[in-house]
């Protein structure tokens, strides 16, 4: 059988394919439904939070920061409760990262404030002496792309039944309703409302001015996203 395979490239290729596809079939496919159920307290990303996530991805923050707390005492001491599968139910793509050049950010919203992030992004040394993280000054001038965010919200709501405009249960027994706009202009309004709430706590006058003009600098979106990581 084998020497026959060796002389028939097509069937040889089929044989190789079966050998390599086998692992994927057994390992990956059957767990799909199971792993993607959200845990209580996990809500979809709001418009501005998702915009912040896009900024996070655009700048490859995940190259240096993980979002995965492993179940060790040293990690739960440092970062908070270890990660649960359902907490990632609305993460497309996942942002676990593979290298902690900087600390984990899975629950950074629990212990860092808007003010801290603002200073840190402008000049990491001012808040963390000895930091090797570069400054991200362009975030204060670049504008967040709300259009693309809205398109993504529509896509995930339609194809993956992400519960926008629906009540989702929270840990304290209350419900949360994450709003998704009915039109592009409404999406901008929703994002701007969220941006104003963030900008109140910020110091940078240019950013504040931009928000009051109705623009959303990337930094505002990014901070909204950071604050949502809990």
């Amino acid at each position, binding site marked *: 059988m084998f020497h*026959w395979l060796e002389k028939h490239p097509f069937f040889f290729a089929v044989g190789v394919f079966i050998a390599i596809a086998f692992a994927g079939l057994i390992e990956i496919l*059957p767990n799909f439904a199971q792993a993607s159920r959200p845990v209580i307290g996990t809500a979809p990303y709001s418009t501005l939070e998702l915009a912040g996530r896009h900024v996070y991805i655009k700048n490859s923050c995940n190259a240096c920061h993980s979002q995965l707390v492993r179940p060790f005492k040293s990690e739960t001491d440092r970062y908070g409760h270890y990660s649960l599968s359902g907490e990632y139910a609305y993460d497309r793509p996942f942002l676990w990262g593979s290298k902690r050049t900087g600390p984990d950010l899975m629950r950074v919203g629990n212990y860092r404030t808007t003010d801290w992030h603002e200073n840190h992004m402008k000049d990491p040394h001012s808040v963390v002496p000895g930091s090797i993280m570069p400054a991200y000054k362009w975030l204060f001038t670049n504008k967040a792309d709300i259009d693309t965010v809205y398109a993504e919200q529509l896509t995930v709501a339609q194809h993956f039944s992400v519960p926008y405009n629906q009540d989702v249960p929270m840990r304290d027994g209350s419900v949360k309703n994450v709003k998704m706009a009915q039109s592009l202009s409404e999406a901008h309004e929703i994002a701007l409302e969220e941006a104003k709430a963030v900008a109140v706590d910020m110091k940078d006058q240019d950013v504040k001015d931009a928000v009051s003009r109705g623009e959303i600098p990337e930094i505002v979106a990014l901070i909204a996203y950071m604050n949502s990581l809990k």
Partner: protein
Amino acid sequence: MNIAEIQAYGYFILTFLLVLVLYGYIYHLYTKKRDADGVDYESYSNMALKDDIDDAPVSALSEEKEK
């Protein structure tokens, strides 16, 4: 039987079969030493060593190469 069990059985049976096939292959290689065309496996190394365009193939596809 739930999906996890099917998964486990599928995994076990297929792995077992593939292990059998692999050992069968080893047994075949080291007892027969030649393939069905009667070519010693080791002589296939010459495909790399004698690879000029006018060197004779280890086992030619056909004498005239009509295709």
